[in-house]
Structures are given as C-alpha cells and as structure tokens.
C-alpha cells in the first residue's frame, strides 16, 4: 500500500507544477470563533420572534409539523396527542437531563411506554438494550442544539444521553426547543460550528452532528416524492415559549 | 462577415442583411477573400489549423470600424476564441483583440451599436424564436432579437417552449452522432409546431440548416428563416 509520504509527495509535485487557474481564496474564518458565536447568540436573542416565524414557514414547507406550548410542562401532553393520533404506544427519548423535562410520568400514566437514554450508562449491555428499544419505538423525542430558520432545519449533536438513533429509527421524530436555539442563516451555523470545534472535549461529547430538514425522503422512482424511506416519516418541532 | 454556411447555402440571409443595414444608414463593405471563421476546426480540436485560419481572417478585416456577422456562433468564435488561438504571436494577438472588439452579431449590432430598437418591415405573420446556444450562452444575448421582432408591426411573437434548448446541430456533432442529433431536433420541432407559428426565426445558419432541414423533411408548414430576412421583409410566402 502507498505510504502517506509517497502519496502526498506525488500531489505536492503536481501542485508545484502549476500556479493555478486564477487567484482564489477560501472563505474567511472568524478570527475569534467563540466571540463570534457569542455575538450571534446576542443578536438572535433580540430577533428570535422573526427567526421563529421564518423557521415555522420553512419547516412546514418541508412537511414538518409545528407545535407551540407555553412551557416545558405542556410538552408531554403534545406527545400523548401525537401518539394517540397515530395509534402509537412506544417512545424513546434522550436523557431527561439533556431534554430539560421528563416525559415518563405523564406518558406512562396514559399507558404509553417510554425508554430514556441515560448519560453515563454506556456499557455493552446498555448498548444492546438501547438498540433494541430504539428499533422497537414508534416515536423518538430529542432536543435540538440549533434550529435554523432559513431552511427549516434542526441541528442535533450526538453524545452522552443523546443517542443518534432517537431521531432516526422511529417512524416519528419530535424535537423540543426554546428560543435560545434559533439561528437565522447557514452562515451563522458555520460560526457556531467553528466555535464548537475549537473546544471539542467540553462542548461535544459525541462524534456526530446531524442537520435534519424534514422527514426522510426519496424521489428515486420516477422522481415521485415519497417520505419515510429509512428515517422517520414525520418530523415534529415543539417550540417552548418560556425562556 | 458573411460566414461559410451563409455564403454557400443561405446567400439570401446575407443579401437581406446588407439591404437591412443600408436601410439603417450603414455603409456595408465585404472583403471578398473571406471564407470561414474556422470554428469547425476549433470545435473538433484542430487548434493549430484553426489558428492559421484565424490569423488570415484577422488580417482580412483590419481597418473596418465594425464587423457584422449574421451568426451567433461565428461572432462568438471571433470575440472569445481568436485572441487565445493567436496568443503565440503578440502582433496577431493584438489584431485579434481589436477584431474581437469590433465584431458584432447582427441583432447586437442593431440594438447596441446603432441604438435602433424599432424596425419597419413589411413582414406579417406569427413567428417563434429559437435561442441559438452560442448567441444565448456564449454572448449572453436573448433580448435583442426579441426586441427587434416585437417591434415589427406585423409580427406576432409566440414564445417557444424550451427556446433555450439546443437544436442538436453542434457542427460536426450533427453528422458524427446523427441519430442523437435528430432525436434532439425532433424534441425541438415538436415544441416549434406546438406554437402554431408560421415562421421559426433564429440568428444562426447552423441552427437554421438543422431545424429547416427537419421541418421540410417532415412536410411542415413552418418555415425556418433568419432574423435578417424577417427584419428586411424578405421572407418568401
């Protein structure tokens, strides 16, 4: 097999042979990513109502279902309603500590089953058990780390207590978020991502970030759009007003 | 610049253009030693040969303040490709750049250089307009021909669906891959006939050869004509 040095040398030689087609620059990165991200947060703190309106518009455009509640306490009732409307009974959720609320009491009282991921329980047995639970669940409940208005996108970081499959295996994905997650543009998402990667151990406990824009879809057969190929058939977003 | 196809197969386009320009107050000359801009050689990759033709053409047209071409592809060739082809010789390159600046496709000459947007022509009929690829994408022109067509009182201009789609000529492509070229043509002519127009107008002899040849072969009522013929009122019934 080719060694790294030999592989890169060949490229270096070819690069040296030509100055390039035209003078070109890459995109300018923020000099202080953390400060830039903080600026984005501050700006959005003022503009969150407009951002929310725009998010709702774009989210519904990609077939997302939007809900709005006054506070976290009202979220479980929405979850119950979603389950009832679909004749579904099994939930899988992120760790309540990560979500900021525990849906289990209300859901179990209604006769629905809930399995929650637990941060700190990542042994092999837990892994197997969670895989089986997630595969059997019909509704997955997560938070959202960023909510992008201009495209109706939910950005989810994976990690401890926030498994990847919660928003992937069940037929229905529900994301719960507050005003502090809203950003308006893809460019702002870039700034936040730059700042996240400067201090990885602290801000990201997982290896994956997913941008989710509507349900799973394909148009591979005659360009006819169908939903729910491998991922969820439905995506719901619940906005919690209380800051 | 009359173009090789224009000289040999469509002299009526050239004569219509000359009469039209004279009516617009332009004094028209014609360097008789001209043959072709060399684009067929260039497109097929024979660049050394194309450069020789370019060098000759550049010298032939020295001294004329404007060079008008009834063809988007030939105008494109001269304006975009001649300087690069002749980059090996500084004198020729400079001459090519000068010629590039002085060369205009017909509709662009009328609208942008003469500043004329209304043509008084006796032509009457519904027409539909095809955007030739090199005029549309090479020279970025889609408005001037339509402006001029609209301005003729007797013209009813119907927009052609897929006007910006290739007719399938592509020079030697039309004979290297004749079946594909014909299939592309059939799609185009289907759109043309659906407009109900009496005349199909284009600004390129290659396109007219391809589309006209297809129309007559299928016995169509639609006549393929050059913009110059419509504006000069020299379209046979």
């Amino acid at each position, binding site marked *: *097999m080719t060694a790294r040095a030999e592989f890169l040398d060949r490229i270096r030689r070819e690069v040296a042979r030509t100055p390039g087609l035209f003078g070109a620059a890459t995109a300018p990165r923020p000099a202080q990513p953390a400060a830039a991200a903080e600026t984005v947060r501050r700006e959005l703190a003022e503009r969150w109502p407009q951002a929310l309106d725009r998010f709702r518009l774009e989210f519904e455009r990609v077939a997302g279902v939007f809900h709005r509640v006054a506070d976290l306490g009202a979220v479980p009732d929405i979850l119950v309603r979603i389950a009832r409307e679909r004749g579904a009974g099994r939930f899988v959720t992120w760790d309540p500590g990560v979500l900021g609320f525990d849906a289990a009491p209300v859901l179990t009282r209604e006769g629905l089953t809930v399995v929650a991921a637990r941060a700190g329980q990542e042994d092999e047995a*837990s892994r197997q058990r969670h895989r089986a639970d997630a595969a059997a669940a019909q509704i997955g409940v997560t938070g959202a780390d960023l909510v992008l208005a201009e495209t109706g996108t939910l950005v989810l970081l994976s990690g401890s207590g926030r498994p990847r499959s919660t928003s992937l295996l069940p037929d229905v994905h529900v994301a719960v978020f507050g005003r502090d997650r809203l950003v308006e543009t893809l460019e702002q998402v870039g700034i936040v991502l730059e700042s996240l990667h400067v201090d990885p151990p602290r801000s990201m406990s997982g*290896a994956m970030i997913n941008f989710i824009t509507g349900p799973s879809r394909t148009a591979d057969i005659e360009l006819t759009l169908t939903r729910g190929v*491998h991922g969820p058939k439905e995506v719901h977003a619940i906005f919690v007003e209380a800051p | 610049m009359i173009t090789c196809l224009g000289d040999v197969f469509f002299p009526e386009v050239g004569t219509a253009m000359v009469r039209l320009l004279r009516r617009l107050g332009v004094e028209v000359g014609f360097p008789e030693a001209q043959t072709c801009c060399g684009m067929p050689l260039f497109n097929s990759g024979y660049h050394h040969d194309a450069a020789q033709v370019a060098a000759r053409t550049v010298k032939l047209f020295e001294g004329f303040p404007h060079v008008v071409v009834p063809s988007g592809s030939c105008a494109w060739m001269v304006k975009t490709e001649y300087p690069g082809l002749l980059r090996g010789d500084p004198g020729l390159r400079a001459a090519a750049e000068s010629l590039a600046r002085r060369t205009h496709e017909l509709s662009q000459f009328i609208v942008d250089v003469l500043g004329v947007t209304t043509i008084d022509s006796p032509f009457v009929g519904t027409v539909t307009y095809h955007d030739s*690829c090199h005029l549309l994408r090479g020279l970025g022109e889609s408005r001037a021909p339509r402006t001029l067509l609209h301005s003729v009182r007797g013209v009813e201009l119907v927009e052609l669906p897929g006007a910006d789609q290739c007719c399938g000529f592509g020079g030697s492509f039309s004979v290297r891959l004749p079946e594909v070229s014909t299939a592309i043509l059939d799609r185009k002519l289907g759109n043309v006939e659906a407009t109900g127009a009496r005349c199909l107008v284009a600004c390129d002899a290659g396109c007219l050869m391809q589309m006209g040849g297809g129309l007559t072969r299928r016995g169509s009522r639609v006549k393929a004509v050059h913009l110059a013929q419509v504006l000069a009122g020299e379209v046979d019934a």
Partner: protein
Amino acid sequence: MSDAALRVPFPERAGAALKDAFLQEALTIATTKFIDLRKESFAGFPQGEALRDRARAIKEATLQHLDTHLERLADNVERVGGTVHWATSADEAREIVLRLCRDRGVRMAVKSKSMATEEIDLNEALEHAGVTPVETDLGEYIIQLAHEKPSHIIAPAIHKTKGQVAELFSRELHGEFPADPEILTAVARRALREKFLQADMGITGANFAVADTGTIVLVTNEGNGRMVTSLPRIHVALMGIEKVIPSMTDLMVFLAILARSATGQKLSSYTTLVRGPRRPGELEGPEELHLVLLDNGRSRQIASTLREALYCLRCGACLNVCPVYRQIGGHAYGHTYPGPIGILLTAMLKGDRSVRDLAHASSLCGACKDVCPVRIDIPRMLIELREHLDREKIAPWTERAVFRLFRRLLLSPAAFRLSVRAGRWLQRPFVHAGRLRGLPLLFGSWTRTRDLPAVASRTFREQWKDLR
C-alpha cells in the same frame, strides 16, 4: 459497464438507447422535473450567483494547496481516533477494504450511495471475497437487484419506470407489488431495516471532508447515510482526494448550493458530520472509522487542462440539462460517470483514449456550464480533450485528413470557390425542390433524417457585385 458492452461502439449504444421507449419516457419525466426544480430553487435565491463564484474560488484555492489540506485532514481524523489509508489506485482501495473485512470478520456490509465505490467496482470485489454488500439507497438497491449500474450520478435508477421497479421487486423479493412508488418505498424500508441492524460494516463515500476538524460530511435524503454510520461497528468512508475543503465556514458555502443544484431543495433531508468513531460517552456509533483517500488518476489532473473537473460536487445538474444525456441516458456512455462531467471524469480516470468517441458526445451547447454550481467550463474542456485526441493522434487518421483538407480550403479563397463549383455539380442528382436528399457517405448521415439546403446557384460572394 462490462468490457464486452464497451466493445459495442458508442454510436450504436446511443442508437439502442434512442429506440428504448421505456427509457425515453423515464428520461423525459426525470430530467424535466430536475430542471424545473433547480430553476425554481435558484429563481428564489438571489445570493446563489455570488455563492457559486465563492464555491468555485474555494475549490480552486484548495487545489492550490491540496497536499497541505490533505495532511491536515489526515492528522485531524487520526487525532479523533480515525484511521487514514492512502490508495493510489482503484486496486489499492479495494485491497484496503477487503483486508479490513478479512481482519475484522465482516460478513455483511451496508452501503450508502457512493459513486467512488462504483468507480473502483468495490461490490464485485466484496462479493468475490465472500462479503455481502447491501446497497441501501433506494435507487442503488433497485439497480443492485437488477444487476445494473447506476445511470445518473444522484438518481441511480432514473432509467426505470415505476412499472419496471414493481416488476423487479415482485420478482426478486417474491411478492406482488403494484406500480406505486409509496408502496415500493415501504417495501424497501422493511427489507433494509434488518440489514442496517445486523451489518458488520457501513461503507459510504464523502461529499466533503473538512481539513480543520477531521470531519467527513455526507449529504443524503433517505436516512441510510445516518444508519450506516451509526449502527454497524465499523465505518469505512471512501473519498476522492479532491473532496477535501479547509473549514466549516467553507462547508456552509457548499451546503448552500449543493442540494439546490441537485434536487432543488434548500438542504437535503440530512447533512451528517462524522468526526471520528464513537466517543466514550456515546451509546451508538462505530468502534472504528476508516477514511480511505483515493487518488486513481486525480492528482495527475492538477497540472492538466482538466483541472477544473476536480471542482465537481457530483450534483448531477449538468446531466439533467444536457441534450445528449436527456436522449440517451447514463448507461450508453459506458462508464461509471455519465453526462457532460462524466466524459471529463472518464478521461481523468482512464486516459484520453477511453473518450475517443465520448469527447464528441456533445453539441457544445453550454447548458451544463450554465447550471454547474462551481461553474466548471465543461464545453471548453471537451474542446481541449478533442485537441488532445488530435495531438496524440488518437482521433482516426481519416478524420484528421478531412479536417486538414478543410483547412486548406479555408486558407485559399480560390480553392474555396472551386469546391463550391464542384459541389454545385456533384449535387445535381440529389436536388429536389432546392433541397438535397439521399446523399452518400458522410453526408448521408445528415440526409437520412433531414434535408440539406442545396449549394446556392449564386453564392453571396457571387451576388456581391450586384449588391454593391
């Protein structure tokens, strides 16, 4: 495409495609929809033009220091626990993956769509080694069942009507399924869900890799890209070296225009950023992540006339607008990558001789350049390719002789006039009402389907003296 199929000359392959009524119907439906979707998307996106310019600049700037960026990428992938492999050729890339399968006891691998794996014929190699590759992208799943190759860069089964897919599923999956895309999709969902959960390895390509952070980026719609990178214990990503980009900020520029160009979406359903294997705190994710960097002829283009082809984002927009692709579909091209960019990529990967015919499978209309998100000047490079074919004497000597003769005519007005007079005389048996029909030889390929105007009885030059 198999070598046997390639022995059929390209014009014949194209001719067969033109006669295939199902294919023609499927192509018209699909390409028309794609064109409309893209047009609509960019119409409502005024920043799009500037973003395309920026995207092109980022690609060019990255190429100018490609070695440095790849080095940083590798360091950062390794820093987060991934392993980087360096594959100069398709052979090496296959060997790397096969060795991994052997060493890790892999029996079944689920794949999300990757043209790079098609390029190196990975599936065939896996099967020979006793590893079952399972395509999970719906389009790839369809063609895997049909034992065919993809016919479009992003919609592999676009050449099939829904009736054909229903028939295929019914036959291969032992059921009776109607020609209803919703039902057929549900069938695939069910069939493949188990595979995701049981597979030992997930294989993907990479749309981008961010050098700054060691992140592999997958742009998908179905969810299979997320499945194969989170459920199996090993993830292998095969990536062409030209896919590296410097930063997250750069990534956003591409994300803003890629899905719009490909399908008219603002963003695809899923954009997945993979940064190494699973972290200690994660319940899910692969134990191992392997990034296989693939050269396979790419580095040779850095200093060549095909350099711009290295900018390609594999969006497929050029295919959808190409008058040739729209008529003949992807299989007729005969190589992994079809359409306008496919001709350039084939020359890049297999040498100029491999595109002796394909270099002319274009009317040079420029529609491809119009829609390319990174503004690759495909027509210009096709002309350059044709120039190579002449210079390297790959073009047939008969053709080169004809063009040399043509040049002579153009350089001598006397010879030009003489050939006009000769033409006037020679055409006499073929003239009907001012038009030519039934011409022999090369001209016959025109007159078989179209009339040709007769050589004018008086050329413009001959009329000039009357005009002045």
